[in-house]
């Protein structure tokens, strides 16, 4: 089938239907109408946490086997997006998994509702300054919650968001004071981060509290 319907395709080739995508956005907007930006923000966080909780936990004997699972799409972290590991502890998402739904929305419904940006501003002020719109809130919360379900070498996996770029090219990166610390943790330079943002939608960091269990893979 042309659009990946019917269940004959590999899992990573199955794409959701436009109606489902757009309806999901409108459902979230309906939540905002009744509960405001704060309520929608809480709902999105709950949604992402709930999704991660509903997926099986993972454990890997070492960092290499985790990185292989991540790259091959077998990890919970790469269930919805193609992920590449670069620069030691930086992971990049090539195409945002929300892009298709977003494009369907702007094509069929019109301009993305302002509430999606207003809720992101609320999140940036209340949680952490890392979201461009509501999709980022779901995405980043999901990654955080998913990491808490993964153990590598018996130790918990940790997540930190570094930077992202939206469909229109708007970049969100951490405050200047945080940037050097996060870049060091990721194992990439500022220039490398900007280079990665040219062809990827998000850069994030996977690490463990004790560095011994997570050797850098250039």
């Amino acid at each position, binding site marked *: *089938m*042309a*659009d*990946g*319907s*019917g*269940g004959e395709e590999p*899992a990573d080739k*199955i*794409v*959701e*239907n*436009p*109606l*489902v*995508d*757009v*309806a*999901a*956005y*409108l*459902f979230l*907007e*309906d939540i905002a109408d009744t509960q405001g930006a704060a309520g929608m923000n809480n709902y999105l966080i*709950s*949604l*992402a946490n*709930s*999704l991660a909780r*509903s*997926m099986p936990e993972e454990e890997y004997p070492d960092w290499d086997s985790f990185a292989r699972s991540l790259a091959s799409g077998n990890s*919970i972290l790469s*269930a*919805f*997006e193609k992920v590449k590991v670069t620069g030691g502890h930086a992971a990049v998402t090539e195409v945002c*998994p*929300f892009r298709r*739904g977003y494009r*369907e929305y702007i094509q*069929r*419904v*019109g301009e993305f509702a302002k509430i999606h940006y207003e809720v992101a501003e609320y999140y940036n002020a209340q949680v952490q300054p890392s979201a461009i719109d509501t*999709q980022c809130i*779901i*995405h980043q919360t*999901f990654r955080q919650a998913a990491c808490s379900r993964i153990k590598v070498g018996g130790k918990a996996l940790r997540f930190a968001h570094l930077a992202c770029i939206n469909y229109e090219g708007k970049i969100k990166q951490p405050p200047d004071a945080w940037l050097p610390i996060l870049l060091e943790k990721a194992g990439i330079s500022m220039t490398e981060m900007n280079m990665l943002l040219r062809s990827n939608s998000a850069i994030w960091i996977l690490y463990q509290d004790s560095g011994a269990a997570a050797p850098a893979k250039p």
Partner: protein
Amino acid sequence: MLDVALVALISDMSEQAGVQGIIQYWERVGAQLAKRMGKEAYMGWPSYNVALRERRTAFSIDGDVTALTDLAITDEDGDVVGYIYALKDCVFTNTTLRIRNTVGSLPSADQEVAEEYSTTVRNTAVCNFCVIHQKFWEEAAKNITVADRQLEALPLAQRGFQGQTKIAEAPLKRIGVNPEYIRSLLRNYACVYALVMKGSKGEETGDKEAAEKPKAAKRGG
């Protein structure tokens, strides 16, 4: 990702708002989607069917929709007042497959919502998402005119992910089509609906005469 997340949340929603609450939520979403997509006007059925084929109409959001042009619906004068349309795949199939690959089985609330909707609203739901889909059709049709006449959408038949089927007898009587013929369509399609000019084939509810004495002779089968 968002589709899978929402389905994963259905169980929580069911606990908090009940299955009736989910139905109300989904109906609002379907109505809102149709409203946001705006109004359309076509000179006649050929231009509407071309728009559908070229994915320009609101109904094109369903994906691959086939206009079954051999099943034109006519009034007593023989004028075409509607057509039957069919979807090869349910719009929810891919989400169900993605859930199976990432989370596991669908939450039981999925079928609970479908059963409640089939009992209390119309007997046409095979999954919880039919609620959004059919409300969307209902409201989107109201926003479309063909030859200056508003349309009405009639869900006719559905085949669920596990093969379960629903055939809506009353609307089939209204448009004079044999249910067995529609059942045979489900071998090749997952979802069948009709678009008719409003008022041309009786009303959806309360028009028992239209349901019991269809003007057109039964076709198909």
